[in-house]
């Protein structure tokens, strides 16, 4: 069965702050509802903690880091789930239950199995 990653894009939130307690509960509820297909996932610290890494001049070149996420957008990557589903219809069905789906958007992508 293919595995899908469901990337959650929402307001840039700090999941560790008590202010998001209710939302964490909502996400935990989703985790339980999707337990049968859940293969992993994590919440991420806010984009202020992000570092973007590039190597200039090809492989082995200088490491150039910049503060912040790769793309500055209104909605930030705030977490991800790995869902093992029969097909895209099932993956979409689960993605639609993630709170981010109504608080932002969820991007569903098939994972390459090597």
């Amino acid at each position, binding site marked *: 069965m293919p595995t899908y990653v469901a990337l959650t894009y929402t307001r840039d939130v700090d999941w560790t702050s008590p202010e998001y307690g209710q939302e964490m509960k909502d996400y935990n509820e989703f985790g339980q509802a999707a337990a049968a297909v859940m293969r992993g996932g994590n919440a991420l610290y806010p984009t202020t903690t992000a570092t973007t890494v590039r190597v200039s001049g090809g492989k082995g070149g200088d490491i150039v880091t910049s503060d912040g996420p790769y793309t500055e957008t209104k909605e930030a990557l705030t977490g991800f789930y790995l869902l093992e589903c029969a097909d*895209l*219809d099932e993956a979409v069905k689960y993605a639609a239950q993630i709170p981010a789906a109504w608080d932002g958007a969820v991007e569903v*992508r*098939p994972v390459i199995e090597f």
Partner: protein
Amino acid sequence: MGAGDALAEVVRDEGTRVLATLARVTGDLTLAEDAAQDAVVRALETWPRDGVPDNPRAWLLVTAKRRAIDVIRREARRPGKEAEAVMFTEAECDPPGVVHDDLLRLVFTCCHPCLGTEAQVALALRTLGGLSTAEVARGLMVPEATMAKRLTRAKQKIAKARIPYRVPAADELPARLDGVATTVYLIFNEGYAAGSGADLVRGALTSEAVRLSRLLAELMPDEPTVLGLLALLLLQDARRDARVDDDGRPVLLKDQDRARWDRPAIKEGVELVGRALRRTPDHPNTYAAQAAIAACHALAPSYADTPWDAVISWYDVLLGIREIPVVRLNRAVAVAERDGPDAALALVDAIGDLDAYPWWHATRGELLHRAGRSEAARAAYERALTLGMSEPQVEHLRRRIAALP
């Protein structure tokens, strides 16, 4: 249609069915398309010479399966057991019920909502309609390389993201069916907007859309959406020859030579709209309601004899399904014919949010013109001209401005 065309038509119809079955058996749309295409080419080479086989579909299926097995072996891209699965079914010819279901699966896969609209349109024409990539590209006015890329990407998404090859469950069927109908209607509109004179290749898209909606009606003869869609397309397409004059200029409904309308198509369309409406008398779908309006026009012996009361009632039904400003504009035009320009002007002015739509201004211009308010009419026509219309439409408006006193 000559004997060669009839043969080509059979090959194309059966080719789609063979492709649908192979897509299920191999689980790979690209491979299935390659194999079915190969069988179609061979049939077109050999049948005219050797005669059409007793069972054309079985012939095509066997030929296509052989090709699929060759490709699988050559590319060794699959474990052997799948090649065996393809071979295992080689001898049998699937019963009609299975072929029917395969085609339905193919319809819902090509028009899956997780594919973009452009991809759905391209797949419907290429995979369901059996047009070549070059033909699809010409029809949609896209470079062939771009179209090839679009089709490859769409098939890649189907394969990699696992868009299922499945008929939707009953609870999702209405929404999914609407999606399929929208895609076919878009194809029709592409051709309809191009007209039948100047651009025959694009105009042929209307025939392709009719063909696709016929396939849908054959597969789902009890679905009112499908019946309404086919009715609407047939009734619109029936006016094809009368819609342009000998110089390729558009002819308004009012001025069309009704003797040039396609009577058999009208008869079929009217029967279909009746069937669609009888199935859902309380809540007709948007296609059936639009087809009912088209039927009112199609059955009127002349423009003056149009049953405007009925036309207006059907617009009310349509607005009850979904409130769309353009539908309100069209309804106002019908009201003008029944109650005169002043009553219609009040309705047009009340719509409000169509300021960027050239036809809103053009319609106002026409109504003001008829109400004898020449200066206001001129201003409205001029405003429409600034909003970007096609060349023949611009020409029409200029003629109307010249006719003002």
